[in-house]
């Protein structure tokens, strides 16, 4: 493999890993802190991608368009959706057993897919990156790399750092971490745990939807994209250790590289490589890379 191809694959791995991390972060937090297995998490990614597609003409009419306006409007809608879903459905799941959680969130997947089908149909769509990010930069003498992919990596990295900062340095982050170990004590300190959960959930939905929106121009928008992401994100969460943000980051990067390079070096086995990776890591560390309490 020559150097510029290697570099391109590294950049692709990075971009894929960071994107996975954004989605998996919400999944691992919702599981680790509220104890809810959320099968519908992949749907938020799908909803984001479809928003990127469907909102652009609407936003163009209302605000004169623009890629960033679509991102902002989509993000606001995702937060609202997260708040609503937590209030209407997920807040009833915290004390239930996993089977009930799986049943309800699976039901939600069906609802979301049906709604998507009714609202925007079942076709595959493409989304154009904004003009000023549509170019390529040269890599070596013959190869080039799309600017938009670099943009995705940069934005995801900024978001990941921002979330890490909130989680580790702010009082909100401390409350969230505390809530994962002793709910009663958190409440006894005067903190509204339900509000805390709602914030975490809405943030998780917003991150997944944002990942879907921002990746739409490189991945195309298609029915079933949610389930695909969900499965790989569960692999991330399990490898990383349930509830661990650091673990999710490491696992997402690992999968980003293994999957991307697997497709180049071992195309016959590419589909199973990440699962082999998961099995090996679980044999070595049954609780994942970072075990949380």
């Amino acid at each position, binding site marked *: 493999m020559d150097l510029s191809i290697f570099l391109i694959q590294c950049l692709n791995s990075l971009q894929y890993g960071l994107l996975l991390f954004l989605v998996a972060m919400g999944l691992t937090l919702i599981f680790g802190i509220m104890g809810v297995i959320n099968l519908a998490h992949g749907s938020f990614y799908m909803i984001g991608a479809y928003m990127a597609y469907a909102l652009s003409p609407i936003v163009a009419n209302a605000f004169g368009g623009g890629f960033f306006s679509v991102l902002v409007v989509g993000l606001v809608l995702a937060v609202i959706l997260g708040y609503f879903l937590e209030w209407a459905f997920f807040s009833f799941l915290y004390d239930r057993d996993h089977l009930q959680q799986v049943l309800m969130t699976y039901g939600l997947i069906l609802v979301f897919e049906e709604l998507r089908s009714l609202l925007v149909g079942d076709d595959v769509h493409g989304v154009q990156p904004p003009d000023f990010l549509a170019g390529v930069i040269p890599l070596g003498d013959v190869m080039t790399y799309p600017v938009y992919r670099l943009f995705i990596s940069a934005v995801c990295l900024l978001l990941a750092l921002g979330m890490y900062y909130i989680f580790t340095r702010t*009082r909100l982050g*401390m*409350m969230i*971490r*505390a809530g*994962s*170990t*002793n709910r*009663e*004590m958190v*409440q*006894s*300190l*005067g*903190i*509204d*745990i339900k509000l805390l959960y709602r914030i975490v959930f809405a943030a998780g939905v917003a991150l997944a939807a944002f990942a879907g929106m921002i990746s739409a121009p490189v991945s195309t928008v298609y029915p079933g994209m949610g389930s695909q992401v969900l499965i790989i994100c569960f692999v991330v969460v399990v490898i990383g250790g349930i509830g661990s943000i650091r673990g999710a980051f490491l696992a997402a990067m690992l999968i980003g590289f293994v999957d991307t390079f697997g497709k180049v070096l071992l195309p016959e086995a590419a589909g199973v490589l990440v699962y082999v990776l998961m099995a090996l890591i679980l044999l070595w560390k049954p609780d994942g890379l970072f075990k*949380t*309490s």
Partner: protein
Amino acid sequence: MPHSELLVEAHDLHAWYGSSHVLQGIDFKIGRGETVGLLGRNGMGKSTLIRTLLGHIKQRDGHITVRGKDMSKAKPHEVARMGIAYVPEGRGVFPNLSVRENLIMAARRGLDGRNDWPYERILETFPRLQERIGNMGNQLSGGEQQMLSIGRALMTHPDLIILDEATEGLAPLIVEEIWRVIATIRASGIATLIVDRNYHKVLANSDRALVLQKGQVVMSGTAKTIEQSDELTGYLGV
């Protein structure tokens, strides 16, 4: 005691765990700056009374007012926000937060804007915590966890601190230190509700006391009269 001076007043409290009727009609009150001792053998309902007052027990009945406001149906965080802090049995230190984070996560001013227990004063009061400031909650000894739990309660600038078995399982020297801290807290004008095995210590540090037996109040009065009563040792099984 004038009504406005009452912090917490509860009337005819009942609580259940499933079908077992654990509190059976308890009246309770505590005033501003007052220290009340809560005595009774193991399993008589002391912790349950506390957790009912704090809104943690869902299956409850009766009337609770805090500062004259009806809190019978309030959620735990609403009760806490009325100026009541809780140092629970088992300490409730967050194992995955550092000592510093345990302290500052819930810091807030008192309802009257009071800020006389800032972070620095907590660390002066508990030098041991200062030494362990970067350690995680689960790396602390029992005594250090207890100090952290009390320090964290103080950071919320409460008007009442409830201490449930604060000296349990601690070495005698640490127990002495905890009692010293409790005296400091009392002296700073914060009301306290104390549960402890050592009833002599409780009564020596309280204005009033009540004794629970099987979910009912069997004795109540000033600490002095309770101490001198002949029935006390019978109720406590000592």
